[in-house]
């Protein structure tokens, strides 16, 4: 059970607005191995974002089991989920979600601050990461002084700085132009290879899909297809199953 970075077993999630019920995940099961670089794709409403939110413990499934880093998220309290996100999971959002009052450096070190890491260690780790992903020299700029691509790279740095086992990215290139999107994917792929961190991202963008080592297509809250391409080590060990 613990050999998977992520394992979902018959996960169901339905959103309710008054009398209206909208099923988002309909008994979805899949396994993702450590170190995989996975893209999920599908039309709007297919369940991509819900899937990422549930894997990240940002939302609760109605039923099923969600195993991340060896822990069943369904059994964890809100506080334990927060702790898991803080230590083991990084998030990259479509709209960056940087804190506007903080500089790029402060945004990136924020999660380390929550972890209680000493200032010197925080500084060293953020500086190293900024240097690796081409943000050196931009440390003191606020989000409004950065381009979209730079902001998203700061968001990636914020997600990576805690050295998590898993990065979840919800349409990370949706607000970026092609060149910037490719540059960001280069950064993410480089970090995936260099650190072995598992990446799962949702996308509509064909060029992003091409870069994924494994492509999971969703439709109506179920896995439509699961395709493994040339991938780094262990990428081929993952699998997905459509529920009956």
């Amino acid at each position, binding site marked *: 059970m613990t050999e998977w970075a992520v394992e979902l077993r018959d996960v169901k999630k339905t959103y309710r607005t008054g009398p209206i019920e909208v099923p988002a995940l309909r008994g979805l099961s899949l396994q993702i191995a450590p170190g995989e670089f996975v893209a999920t794709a599908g039309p709007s409403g297919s369940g991509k974002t819900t899937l990422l*939110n549930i894997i*990240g413990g*940002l*939302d*609760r499934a109605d039923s099923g089991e969600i195993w991340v880093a060896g822990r069943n998220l369904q059994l964890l309290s*809100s*506080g334990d989920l*927060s*702790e898991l*996100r*803080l*230590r083991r999971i990084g*998030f990259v*959002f479509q709209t960056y*979600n940087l*804190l506007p009052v903080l500089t790029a450096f402060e945004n990136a070190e*924020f*999660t380390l601050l*929550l*972890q209680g890491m000493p200032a010197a260690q925080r500084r060293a780790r953020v500086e190293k990461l900024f240097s690796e992903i081409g943000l050196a020299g931009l440390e003191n700029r606020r989000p409004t002084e950065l381009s979209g691509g730079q902001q998203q790279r700061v968001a990636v740095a*914020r997600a990576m700085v805690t050295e998590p086992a898993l990065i979840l990215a919800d349409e990370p290139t949706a607000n970026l132009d092609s060149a910037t999107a490719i540059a960001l994917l280069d950064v993410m792929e480089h970090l995936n290879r260099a650190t072995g961190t598992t990446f799962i991202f949702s996308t509509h963008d064909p060029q992003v899909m091409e870069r994924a080592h494994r492509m999971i297509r969703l439709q109506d809250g179920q896995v439509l297809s699961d395709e493994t391409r040339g991938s780094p080590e262990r990428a081929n060990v993952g699998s997905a199953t459509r529920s009956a």
Partner: protein
Amino acid sequence: MAAIAFGYAMLLFVACLMAGLRWQMIENGTSLVMSQIQVQAPGYYPSRAVQKTLGGRKGTDVAAMLAVVAANRRVYAAAPRVYGYGLLSAAHRSAGVELMGIAPDQEPKITILNSQITKGEYLTERTPKGVVLGDKLASTIGMQLGSEIVLLTQAADGSMGNDVYTLVGIFHTGLDSVDRGLVLMTLPALQDLLHLAPARIHEIGIKLNDITAATTAAAALETQLGKTVPVRARAWPELAPELAGYVQFNRGITFVLFSIFFLMAVIGVMNTMLMAVFERTRELGMLMALGMRPAQVIMLIMAEAAGLAVASLLVGAALAVPLLWYLQVHGLNLGGAAGGVISLAGIVVGHLWYGRQDFPAYAEAAMGLAITALVSALYPAWRAAHFLPTEAIRKV
């Protein structure tokens, strides 16, 4: 923030004005004639029998007693007094009056009647047969400065005391009972009229450094002086229960006004805190997504509420300072509406309503608003801590 700051400024304004009115009432009520503490022989008050002097028929060493009183650290000044009642006659008219014998060099240290002289002059040792009285009495009897006056009274030994005096000064206090019924004369002159020896006085009037300590100081002085002669010391709340009642009434009104402004401030603060949290729902959701624990979210919001409260109180205080300064230095001029002099509960308060700094009330208001801000933040903080991060992030 504006709600807390404005609410606090209003609370300071109300507290300052009401404390000022309270203070003016007490100050004017005690400083005109009464004084803040009166030391008398037991049983003298309220009958005011002429023969009931301090130390009984033998009297007491007045200078020694004054020295003991003056040595008390709470006492600002003290003065001896003698009282009597009699009939004042001048020309063809007469009136019943209260006679008050004072030491002209000591009395002005404890009361302000000397500053109310509108014609002539205050009593001095040089005019032992001089008297000073109110303008309404002078007008009623038809007296002018220099008029000869006959005073007739029952002396302490049961005989009739009478003598001729000269009107040397006329005062106007604005208080009808004083302007119409009080006659001031020197202590030796009244003792002579009442056939009292120099050692026999009815009262020592006392002014304190801090009037709020009057009751405590009176009890201490009574114990201290009682070691020599039996005495009864009364503070102004006992001497003027109507004034004490008014002060209580004033405190009640202050409490009601305070409560109204406080309630307004509380509603503002609660609204501010709720809005502050709900407007930042997305940001808080993002922080939780990054790993901030629910307890940390509550602490963050509470810390922000505390910071907001402190900053708002400082701004409120800054807004109020010039207002409070103006109230204390210049006062509110009510002359236009009230015609110059206002009398409340039998006490002249003047046409200017001065404020007075009431720091304990300011501190209570600040504490109350700060606690309100924190309590108001609890519910939104608890709500925020229980957001699902996805729901929070979705909000714009």
